[in-house]
């Protein structure tokens, strides 16, 4: 049976070892007495030093365009709006006076595409369900601002980012997306500009 007090003392030993590990001289002392130092300071001093995030790190979606900002991949099919779990996406399709969809580069396009940062939970469902790979996840995370109904609602202009940017932040994923798009293009080439996947006139969300 252990003596009363040894448990307390061994706990104090662990804490003291950790204390020494955080100082360079303490690590020297530990090595001298034959203890291998393991953990040092683990704090990342945030505004000065930023944590290195993994490549797949995701935060807040953005809209991808090819070459020029008017050539965006989004066709305003509203699948993401419908599937978005917290319902933070709002899309209105661009239509002319007669109510027919306006086409640009052979595709319909959204007139309004708003995402509310304060509601979005960065879950990536919109990216997973998008049949056109038009929406992707960003990795900037310093989005705080004071305007709840102004700056925190991201409109189409602020959401648009180039394909090159997507390639620069998620190179691996972008390569996969490019492959998929190329395959789709090859398949769709014989039959003219019909839409794969869901039809543009998807029903409005059930709730």
């Amino acid at each position, binding site marked *: 049976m*252990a003596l*009363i*007090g*040894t*448990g*307390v003392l*061994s*706990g104090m*030993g*662990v*804490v003291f070892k*950790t204390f020494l590990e955080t100082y360079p001289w303490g690590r020297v002392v530990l090595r001298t007495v034959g203890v291998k130092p*393991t*953990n040092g300071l*683990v704090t990342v001093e945030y505004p000065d030093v930023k944590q290195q*995030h*993994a*490549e*797949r*790190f*995701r935060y807040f979606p953005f809209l991808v365009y090819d070459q020029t900002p008017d050539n965006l991949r989004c066709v305003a099919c509203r*699948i993401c709006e*419908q*599937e*978005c*779990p917290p319902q933070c996406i709002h899309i209105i399709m661009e239509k002319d006076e007669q109510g027919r969809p306006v086409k640009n580069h052979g595709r319909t396009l959204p007139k309004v595409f708003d995402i509310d940062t304060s509601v979005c*939970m*960065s*879950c*990536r*469902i919109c*990216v*997973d*369900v*998008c*049949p056109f*790979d038009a929406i992707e*996840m960003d990795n900037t995370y310093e989005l705080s601002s004071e305007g709840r109904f102004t700056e925190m609602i991201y409109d189409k202009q602020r959401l648009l980012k180039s394909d090159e940017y997507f390639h620069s932040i998620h190179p*691996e994923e972008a390569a996969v997306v490019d492959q*998929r798009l190329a395959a789709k293009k090859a398949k769709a080439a014989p039959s003219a500009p019909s839409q794969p*996947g*869901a039809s543009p006139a998807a029903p409005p969300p*059930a*709730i």
Partner: protein
Amino acid sequence: MEQAIESQLLEISLGPQHPSTHGVFRMNATLDGETIVKLKPVMGYLHRNHEQIGESISYIASFPFTDRLDYFSAMSNNLGLAIAIEQLGGIPVSERGEYVRVIMAELTRLVNHTAVTGFLINDMGAFGTPLLYAFREREKILDLFEAASGSRMMCNYVRPGGVREDVPAGWLAQAKQLVDGYPRFLDEFEMLLTDNEIIRQRTQGVGVLSKELAVNASVTGPMLRATGVNYDIRKVDGYSIYPRFAFKIPLGSAGDVYDRYYVRILEMRESVKILQQALKQIPDSGPAISPKGLAIGKAPRTFRPAKGDAYGRIEAPKGELGFYLVSDGSPQPYRYHVRAPSFVNLTVLEDMCLGQKVADTIIILGSVDIVLGEVDR
């Protein structure tokens, strides 16, 4: 001197704003001096309509919400829902996907058990040292989660049929390194806590839960096993690929707070064994998700399981986590129900607390291991 001094009972509301109720939970306690004579748990402050929302969105869109049930073990929650949907839709799981899922689930167990041990000691009044040691190790695992899924806590990674994307190159080697180093941390952690006289004095014989009551109240997880009942769904159901691994189920005997603590420590050691075997056996290549699975790019509304119901359950770190789904053939579930282990385990709180001191109530609550996101849903 039989006549005691006449005294009044003191009613005190521990929570919802209280440092140790693990969120917005409230205990209406009636005290006689410092002794609890009555205790009523009040919950629902964090109610978010999880089940109702699940019935109005497609199956796949529920996954991000399951992350937020028990936010310490998002991967396990994903796995539970995925298993339920697989049963409902008859979706096979790819071989590599199974391994990745088991690895993630066991890493989640490590995350949860280290953190809850730290919180337990914090509830006892330590100034955060064990908790921060636990968080230091937890961060390393969360780094792995981030590398695989893109998010540290709200992973949204497991999908019916496998996992959303395969783990990145080199991930398995990193995981192996972490897992091999983990017993060392556990040894140090135990040196700090297990034999500490203050902790043993505080926890042994406190909050005793009897075998009969535990079974009758359908308590599950480490809390049940601390009373000595050999019940672990990984062994009972043998879901996923758990039968392929050799591991033991640690059982306590007294059913008090100390046993719950120590059973968790031993479970972590067994998890390390499972992880080591899984990392050795995992196939080098192969799809992470089976062709029938709900992979990226698949339109969610096309998944319409046939009429019927399914109950998928797993051994989540906190106990039996079950998802009950009823399909009416539409893209949304007709009924979506979560059997949350924290919630069920909390029902025996009053029985454990009666006759104990105020200070014990706090650590008993800590040893139940609740996450309010799961209790209130």
